[in-house]
């Protein structure tokens, strides 16, 4: 075990530093967090500003944002911790984030972006690799896992009807307003040509156009085809007769060939041994 630890500490990919973390004191082996300074073009990732953001790889499942923030707080003031599934630009925090809808649960091992207030803290964090394993769950800040965690999340899954109702009502009011606005806008544009003189035809108006969907297009094509087929005379000319015969033989041959292949396949797999 000791040998393994030594090796793990020794080998680190370029640019990274390896921090050993343990769940609690009594664990004997540890995971390695790989950290490095977040590097991105200026302005490309506003949520994770370069220089003062620490990129953390291989965050264990029981290590949430709170634990991370606590772990790194000794290097400097932590402004925010963003844990996500795979590396990527941070999404803008939605103001309207709902308590009940669109929950994203974090699964398994994650990557994290720790944003410090000062760039110096990033270097300090990288220097932690020299120290012994960091502890995720301590006496003062225990992390719940197992049965107690599941009971807590069961409790959390039960919603308060009133709160839910209030949220739904608020959302729907917003939505209704938005739809009404759009409709009003569409009504204004109805029948009014744009600067090039085109008039937009919608399903509303007096002369509703065909809906622009794939299904509608297919339907029209199908109808055309049927119309053409109805006009055609079958087996009227001698060449048509001949064609159908040829077609029949060709079908038989095709079938025969397919069957032969199937048999060959089955023979190869020894499927003809009755017992």
């Amino acid at each position, binding site marked *: 075990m000791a040998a393994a630890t030594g090796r793990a500490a020794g080998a680190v990919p370029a640019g990274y530093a390896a921090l050993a973390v343990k769940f609690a004191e009594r*664990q004997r082996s540890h995971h390695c967090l790989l950290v490095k300074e977040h590097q991105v073009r200026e302005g490309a990732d506003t949520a994770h500003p370069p220089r003062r953001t620490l990129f953390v790889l291989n965050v264990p499942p029981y290590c949430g944002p709170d634990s991370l923030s606590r772990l790194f707080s000794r290097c400097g003031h932590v402004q925010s911790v963003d844990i996500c599934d*795979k590396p990527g630009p941070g999404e803008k925090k939605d103001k309207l984030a709902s308590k009940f809808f669109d929950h994203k649960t974090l699964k398994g091992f994650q990557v994290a972006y720790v944003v410090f207030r000062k760039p110096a803290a990033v270097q300090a964090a990288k220097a932690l690799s020299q120290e012994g394993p960091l502890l995720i769950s301590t006496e003062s800040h225990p992390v719940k896992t197992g*049965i107690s965690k599941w009971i807590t999340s069961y409790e959390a899954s039960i919603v308060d009807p009133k709160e839910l*109702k209030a949220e*739904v009502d608020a959302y729907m009011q917003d939505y209704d307003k938005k739809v009404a606005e759009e409709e009003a806008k569409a009504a204004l544009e109805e029948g009014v040509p744009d600067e090039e003189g085109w008039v937009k035809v919608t399903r509303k108006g007096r002369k509703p156009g065909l809906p622009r969907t794939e299904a509608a297009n297919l339907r029209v094509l199908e109808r055309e085809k049927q119309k053409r087929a109805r006009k055609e005379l079958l087996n009227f000319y001698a060449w048509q007769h001949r064609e159908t015969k040829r077609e029949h033989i060709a079908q038989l041959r095709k079938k*025969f060939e397919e069957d032969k292949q*199937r048999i060959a396949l089955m023979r190869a797999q020894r499927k003809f041994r*009755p017992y």
Partner: protein
Amino acid sequence: FYLQGSPEAAEEAEQGPEPSAGGAVRRGKRAAPAAAAPQPAKLSRAELYRPPTSEELTQLKETEDLFHSSLLRLQIEELLKEVTLKEKKKKKIDAFLHEINSLLSAIPETPETELTDQAWLSEGVKVPFLQVPFSVKGRFRFVPPAELKVVGSYLLGTCVRPEINVDIAVTMPREIFQDKDNLNQRYHRKRALYLSHIAQHLSKEKLFGSVKFAYMNSNHLKPILLLRPQGKDEKVVTVRLHACPTSDLFKPSRFYPSKNNVRTAWFMEQSTPKEGTTEPPTPHYNNSILCDTVMLSHLHFLSNAATDFPGMKDGVALLKVWLNQRQLSKGLGCFSGFLVSMLVAYLLMKRKIVKMMSGYQVLRSTLQFLATTDLSVTGISLAKDADPSLPVLDDFHQAFEVVFVDPSGLVNLCADMTASKYHQVQLEAKRSMEILDDRMVDGFQVLLMTPKPIGAEAACSKTSELFSCNWGDLLDETCSSSTPISQQLLLQKPHLSLCLMFLIFPQWPIDADPPKHKDVGPLTFGLLFVPEFAASTLEKGPQADHPEALEFRTFWGEKSELRRFQDGSICEAVVWEASTACQKRLIPEQIIRHLLKLHADIPESSICYTGALLESVIRTGKEAGGTGEEAMVSVVCSYDDLSRKLWNLKELPLMVTAVQGVHPALRYTDVFPPIPMKPIYSFHKRSKHFLLPSEEKPCPAYITPLKIICHMEGSGQWPQDKGAIKRIKAAFHLQLAELLRQQHQLVCRPAVTHTDVYKDGYVFRLQVAYHREPLILKEVVTPEGMLKYQDTEESRLLELETLHLPYLTSSLHGLQQQHPVFGSTSRLAKRWISAQLLSDSISEECVDLLVAFLFLHPAPFTPPSSPQVGFLRFLNLLATFDWKNNPLIVNLNTGLTGEQAVGRRNKFVASRSRLPVMFLATPKDQWSSMWTQERPSAQILQRLVLLASESLRALEEQLMDPLSDQDVKMVFRPPLDFYDVLIHLNPSQIPRLLESVDRPVKSVSRGVVKNSSAMNILFPVVDYDPVQLYLQELRNAFDDLALFFYDKHGGEVIAVLWKPLSFQPQPFKVSSMRGKKVTTLNNELVCIPNVEAILEDFEILGEGLVKSVEARTEKWTI
């Protein structure tokens, strides 16, 4: 059509780019079909439209006329290639025969002795004949055979592998017989002595691998000598020596069926014949001698029939395969291959078969004849010109049960066959004809490639329950065709049909005594239930004043009692004790035990009924009572009531258009159906309106939410945006909860995605659905502004849940109404899969469909009529179905026509590589196999197939030998030795512990009591299973490193298998660093899984649940 004008053909030939070249290629192919390596997938256009040659036209026409389809023709050709004897082997056999010939003629003569004086035989040989009574007149001496001739299938070329028998008729010279040798077994004993002398000499030869005796078709009057070559050819051939007299030795008239040739006085060992009594006829005895005299003439007859008739050889070979697969061609009174050849010859004589026909047509015509003709009523005869002196068919009918007279007009070829056995053959033929006419099933596969074994009996094989008892003493040793009385008795009961397993005597070495009837061992009977009556508790007899009443009373004994029925009639009736479905299934056992005790005086202890041994694994709760059918019915009742209430709910802004259940309990296939429960408050942590699991107490009992989809009416008021629809649905859930509480006083707990309703002790989970939602989820607008619908993961899941699963549930609910044991079969199957730790690797719906297949397409069997038989068939299906080459088509509600099924098959072949490894097609889901798309994976399927075939083998062994002390639950205990890590769980935190295969001795309180009437309670803990939550977390975290296996029904261990691929050192990559560590290997940076830490993570994640983590292998050390 086929006489296509030659000018046209010429014209086309000119047009075609290079017709001759195409033709050459084609001919080349046909000449060498063996070199059928990777052929081009498609014919080129030029080849397809090339003018046909006349020989090609005839071939196409032949295929159409003589065979069902070109595929069938090819399949049959392949099968025949497989079963017929190869030329190389034939040469070896011929050489072997020559050597035997020279050896036989060199056997020395012996001096004449009395028949009873057998001292001249050496110690090493026992006479292969039961010499009872021993004393008999007559003298015997050995003289080398007058003639040796190969007879039977070897010469006709109709012998089929794997058991190649060559029959040699050894003609005993005239000199060794005296007058009156036809009497009192003297002929038979001489025959036996003759063979023993031959055996004595041949056993010294090094040429033979083995020299053994056997009874010809298990008829103990007819011993034969079996010779096998030495060395590795031993399995190739068995040469059977039949001793026979010269054809003119006996006067045929002595052996007419009405004549006596065994004197009573001699047989009963009385000194003087009784005066005035007439001797009874001995038709079977007579027939056995006659058979020997006509062997050569039969050969001539058959070879005449087979000349210029290639189809006969093929047809007989196919028929033999057909019989072998049904195990009808072995044992006493079997339908042997010889009999089949004679039958084909008969049909040829009657012009029902013509020499033009193909092998397939011969098979078909013969089956048709068997299916429609009852030889036990109207016998047939091959004798051409009616000699007035010969016995007529009626004479034969009086003496034998089944009549088929040979060309000589003397021998009944079906002498040993009983009527019931013939009916068994007939039943099989009838069923096979139905299968051949049914386009839905692959007739070739079902008829000729599928064995119908279970050793028990042929007709119903696995459909039947098995019980065996020691009946050896019942069989009369003297009469060769004695039918046990009990068989007739059982046949009187209308709803059980019964098949006796053929008595098969094994071969025995020449120095052992011939086997007696006692040596056959326990008898095994198969029972075929008529599902409508098999489980009825009442047997209504005739009215009390009718004369049949007496017969009824004597048949049923004390069980029969007078009863007054609702229509006022007073009838004899028998009532059986049974309250639950499980007990009702055991009524046949009660009947059998009662009747055997009553009529045959067989004690109950010597009868063993193995029809329902497995049902204990799906028994619910602690009580021994039922197997959950009743619980399921009560769930469905409660659900029906709830759906009515939902329909009639007032003040709902939109109407409820449909209420559909999707939980397996609502299609009767839940392994352990929910039981009405009421929580004990003190056991839980309490909140204002609901209960919570408590950390200090054991985990509360698992309460399954029964999921119900509640479709709301479509309306313009529904928003057309997916976020808004979700909110509206949540609002509906809130409102449903509120209304159900107000109008029906039900306790409800709403949530965002559903509303849980506590009713009658069950918890139903209502989920609102809007039919346009999947469509809205699919909407995509192309850059040109066109609206397209594209499947997304979300829409697929929603459709599955709200559209397909309800449909499947209602279809299977309907199937259960037709086949009452469907549900229990499916439950047994699921229990087995779960016990093998694979329940998370294959979807429940997939198992349900597989079981539905057994009931909808049982060919060549009948639909299973007991869960155990259904389960055995399920294992058989899993183990033998050719998943690689065929889709499994489950024709629910007969929604697919034959053409569609064929089309489905062809398309399947074309796109095999893109389809799931296990492909299930149903009428509503022909192209995507939605229930098997992700699971099972190829490896899991392979494992399933392996486990199924092993389990099947073990189970069949145990069921056939019920007296052995092996536990039938064995197949429900999985082998754990090949997993890498075992995570042992704390039993008190496993909520479903009671469902485990081996129930825990000590039970823990789970905080619930049985109660279905509780109304106003705090909401219980629903759908809380720590083990499942734990598994979820494990899979989320370590999915790319390991597979986790668990028996969700109370398993105490989670088995972990490392994925070998992810343990190979890989170069560092940001995206694949989960749970790994970086290390140097050969001066390169590589990532390997951090196993020590992961093993500790197992414990951390399952804190309180995990007892210990046991790493069993060191596979990860690199």
